[in-house]
Each structure stands twice: as structure tokens, then as C-alpha cells.
């Protein structure tokens, strides 16, 4: 065991540098997917609360389907489906075929998956904003956009952050699924390093530690963010445990 630690060195023959590059790819996918998920989620949450019956039902179908199917199958379906549709559209418009890069595809597909979960989290948080505040703002003649940016969003942030924190952790871990589609992120790079050097435990445990550090750092960061978002709240009752 002791000799295999040298394999983690940053420069070849060590694999540390490869792992770090792959880690960067993982982080990019996670951040991008989480961002797209937030945008979809915010739009979806507002649509589910204020939209008409058709929009509401369509959004329900989206969130239910995405949450009922394994991520892996969604990734494959969306990956092939989206590239196919895009290329057919481009062919119809007399453009050439394009190949979507792995990073972009990963970000979009995981973003669509994250969007479904974010919709439900944000919807719950928006509904938990005291309706009197929104009514008061409307009564004062605030336009709808200002109600959202000044009242609803700041108030619901503190309520949504615990759920969003979980969602971000899922995003970081779901990037590992891109390994199955052959995209070179941290988990796949780890397997390549491990099967080349036969030092399986060293590399898998090292990658596990990297993921764990990301998890712990994000948990800490989100806790601070939540304290900041709740800075104006009345003191909460602590649970009856």
C-alpha cells in the first residue's frame, strides 16, 4: 500500500494532475447543471403557482416523470433525443450536423433533471411566504416583478436553502453518472488511473475523499448562506426534541 501513494503525485507518472483536471470538469458540470436547474425551477415554481390549468398540468407531468425515472435513463434519452432533434432541425434548415460536446450535453441534461427537483423545492418555499406580505405589497401598488424581487424571493430564500443545499449535493454526485456516457469526469478518470496502475483502493479512496471534501465544504457554505438569508427573520422556535 505505502508505495502507491506516489501515484497520486501531480506530474506524470503520478495521476494527481489527471484527477484534478477531471475534478474541474466535474465541478463545471455540477455548477452549470445546478444553475440551469435553478432557472428552470424558478420558472416552474412560478408557473405551478400562478400559471393556468394547462401549464400547471404540463409542469406536473415534467416533475413527476423526471422524478420517477432513473437519472441514467433520462440522461441517455435526453442525450440522444436532444442531439437527434437538434440535428433534424438543423438539417431541415439546411445547416450541417453538429456534434454536441460532452460538457454541454452533460450540463443541459443534468440541468433538466435538477430543474424538476428545484421546481418542487422552490414552489414549497414560495408558498410558505406569508400571503399577507404579498397582499400588502400589491395593495401598495407594487408591480408584480417588484413583488417578486423585493418580497417573495428574499423571504423564501431562507426557506428554500436547505432543500437547495441537498440538491447541490445531488448535482455534485450525479456528475459521476456522466462517466457511464463516457465523459471524462472525476469518477471515470479515477477508474482509468486505477485500472492502469492496479492501485484500486488508493485511487478510489482518494476520489472519495475529494467528493467528501466538496460535500463538507458545500454544507458549511450553505449553512452560512442560510444564516445570512435568514438575518431579518424573527427568532425561530427550535424543535421540541
Amino acid at each position, binding site marked *: 500500500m505505502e508505495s502507491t501513494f506516489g501515484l497520486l503525485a501531480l506530474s506524470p507518472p503520478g495521476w494527481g494532475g489527471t484527477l484534478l483536471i477531471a475534478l474541474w470538469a466535474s465541478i463545471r458540470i455540477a455548477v452549470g447543471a445546478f444553475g440551469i436547474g435553478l432557472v428552470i425551477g424558478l420558472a416552474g415554481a412560478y408557473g405551478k403557482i400562478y400559471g393556468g390549468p394547462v401549464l400547471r398540468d404540463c409542469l406536473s407531468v415534467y416533475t413527476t416523470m423526471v422524478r*420517477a425515472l432513473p437519472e441514467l435513463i433520462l440522461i441517455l434519452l435526453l442525450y440522444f433525443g436532444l442531439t437527434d432533434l437538434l440535428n433534424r432541425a438543423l438539417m431541415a434548415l439546411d445547416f450541417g450536423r453538429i456534434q454536441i460536446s460532452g460538457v454541454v450535453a452533460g450540463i443541459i441534461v443534468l440541468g433538466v433533471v435538477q430543474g424538476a427537483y428545484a421546481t418542487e423545492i422552490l414552489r414549497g418555499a414560495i408558498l410558505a411566504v406569508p400571503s399577507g406580505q404579498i397582499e400588502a405589497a400589491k395593495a401598495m401598488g407594487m408591480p408584480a416583478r417588484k413583488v417578486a424581487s423585493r418580497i417573495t424571493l428574499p423571504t423564501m430564500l431562507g426557506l428554500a436553502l436547505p432543500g437547495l443545499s441537498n440538491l447541490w449535493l445531488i448535482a455534485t454526485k450525479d456528475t459521476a453518472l456522466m*462517466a457511464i456516457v463516457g465523459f471524462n469526469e472525476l469518477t471515470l478518470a479515477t477508474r482509468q488511473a486505477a485500472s492502469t496502475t492496479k492501485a*484500486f*483502493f488508493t485511487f478510489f479512496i482518494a476520489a472519495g475523499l475529494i*467528493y*467528501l471534501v466538496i460535500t463538507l465544504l458545500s454544507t458549511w457554505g450553505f449553512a452560512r448562506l442560510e444564516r445570512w438569508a435568514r438575518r431579518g427573520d424573527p427568532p425561530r422556535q427550535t424543535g421540541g426534541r
Partner: protein
Amino acid sequence: MKALLQPHRIIMMLIAAGLVLWICLAGRWDWLGEPKYQTLILQGIWRTIWLMALSVLIGFTLAVPLGLAQASGPWYLAVPARAFCTVIRGTPLLLQIWLWYYGLGSLFPGIPWIRESELWPILRQAWPYALLALSLSYAGYEGEVMRGAFASVPRGQIEAARAMGMPRHKILTRISFPQALQSVLPTLGGETVLQLKATPLVATITVLEIYAASSRVRQDLLITYEPLFFVAAVYLVLAGVIVLGFGWLESRRPRRTA
């Protein structure tokens, strides 16, 4: 029933039915009729079901002591239990599966007494590692859930039981565990659906479950979508059965009367 008969819902259902019909008619489904693929798919579904059921069973059995140790155990049990749950929940399941399969799988052949033991023919296959990884993962997530459940059992009841002279294991089996289990059943249902959704990951270590079976069909016949739609439908049905099953379990629990 009335809710379903709103005009826009009827139109949406017609569109959905049309889509399904179009997939059925325009797609290539002849492989479903071939005995070779039929056995592959049936075996795959069966493997998915027992991998899920067994890992949930083993995982939950491990989760109860993990939760108990964190909620009311001494520090030398609570700290390792907490560390285990953090590590499991903080790393991707795919990484855990590969760690056990490639790691242990490369270690075992070098140890003579394992290779000569009765268990070797089993340990040479992939499924024990898949089951191990899935069970430990479920235990890690549910350990955290059980910690909350045990902590939320009202203190007064446990104090009362202690005052009546109940021994500790009886307090556990008669008071803490039944109430913790009741409060945790809805969460457990959701987590079990998540466990079902995690099973296709074991296809990466050559376990031939339903997802792997569909990949085999896709590679053999060079078709992209139809097998994916088929497994999607299978997972939807299985998830529905789990949700219904847990709903039934919940409805069986005794209602509060006073």
C-alpha cells in the same frame, strides 16, 4: 373522476395516448417477440427486483443500529456511525460500487484461503459486490433517517418505561422502535424508490439487470430509443408498485384513538 374530465386534461391524455401509440407503431418492437431477448429481459427484471428488495432489507437492518447509535448511543458508537453515514452520503454511489467491485475484486484473488473457500465461486461473480454497495448505501442514507426518527420519540414515554422498570431492550422493541418505524414509513417509501432508481448503476460492473439487458438489445440490434422506452416503462411500473406497497403498509398502522 371529475378532475380528469376537464377539457384540457382530456386533450393532454389524448396527446399522451397518441404519443404512446406512435412509439408503439413507428418503433421497432420485433425483438420483444424473440425468445432470446425475452429470457434476457425477464431475467433482468427479476434481478433488478431482488437486488432492490434484498439491499433494502439488509440496508434497513443495518440502518436501525446506525440510527440508534447516533440518537442515543455512547460517543464511541455514535462517532463511527455518524462518520459512516457522512462518507456514504458524501460520495457518489457509482464510486462506491466501483470501489468494492474493482478494489475487493482485485484483493481477493491474492488471498489463498479465500480462493480455496466454499464461497469463492460466488465471490468471483459481480452481484455480491453490487449487493454490498447497494446495501451499504441504503444503510448510510437510512441511518440518518432513523437517527431523526429515534430522536423524535417523546422522551417522557422512555422515562416512564424506565421508571416502570422495563429493561433496555424491551424499551427498544416495545416503545422506541415501533414509533420510530411508524414516523419513518413515508420517508422510507420515497427512499426505496430512490434505491430502485440506483440499481441500473450496477450494470457498469456486468450485473445483467434490466437496464443492462436493454443495453444489450440496443447494441445487438443498433436501435437507440425503443429499449430505453421499454425500461423506462418497467421502472415506472416498479416505482408504482413500491409506492402502492408502502401506502398499504402505512394504512395498516394503528390510528391514534385518544
